[in-house]
C-alpha cells in the first residue's frame, strides 16, 4: 500500500483519534472559561479558596449533567 495515501486506514484511524483529542481539549478550554467567570468573582489570589476550587469542580460536573438532560430531552 502506498504509505502516503490519504485513504490509508491507518491514517484515518490516527486522524480520528486526534479529532477526538481535539474535541476534548476544546471542551476543557470552553468550560474553564465559563466556570472561571462563574466561580472566580473577586481578584485572583495566590491560591484558590476551597469554595472557589469546589465551585470549579461542581461547575464542570453540573455542565455534564446538564448536557445529558439536554440530549435526553431532544431525543423525546
Amino acid at each position, binding site marked *: 500500500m502506498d504509505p502516503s495515501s490519504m485513504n490509508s486506514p*491507518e*491514517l484515518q484511524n490516527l486522524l480520528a483519534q486526534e479529532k477526538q483529542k481535539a474535541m476534548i481539549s476544546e471542551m*476543557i*478550554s470552553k468550560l*474553564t*472559561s465559563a466556570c472561571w467567570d462563574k466561580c472566580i468573582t473577586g481578584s*485572583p489570589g495566590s491560591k*484558590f479558596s476551597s469554595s472557589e476550587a469546589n465551585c470549579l469542580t461542581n461547575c*464542570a460536573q453540573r455542565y455534564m449533567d446538564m448536557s445529558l438532560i439536554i440530549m435526553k430531552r431532544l431525543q423525546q
Partner: protein
Amino acid sequence: MDSFSSPSSGSSPKFSTDDIMSQLRTQLEQAYAEEFLETVRGKCFDKCITKPGSSLSGSESSCISRCVDRYIEATGIIGKALFNQR
C-alpha cells in the same frame, strides 16, 4: 522542467503517515497555545486592569501573575473534574 522528473518515481514527494501526523500534532499544539494565550489575556485584563493608568502599577502586575497561575490551575481542576466523575 524535465530535470524534475526522475526515471524511478516520476511523481511528487511522498510523505509518510508519521510525517503527516507529526506535522498535525505540532500545528495543533501551536493553535492550542495561541488560543490559551488569548483567553488568559482576556480574563486577566478584565480582572486586573480595572482602571487603566499611564503605566502598570505594582499591584496590577502582581494581580496579572497570580491570575495566570490561577487560570492554569483552573484548567487542571476542570480537566480532572471531567475525567474523575463519580
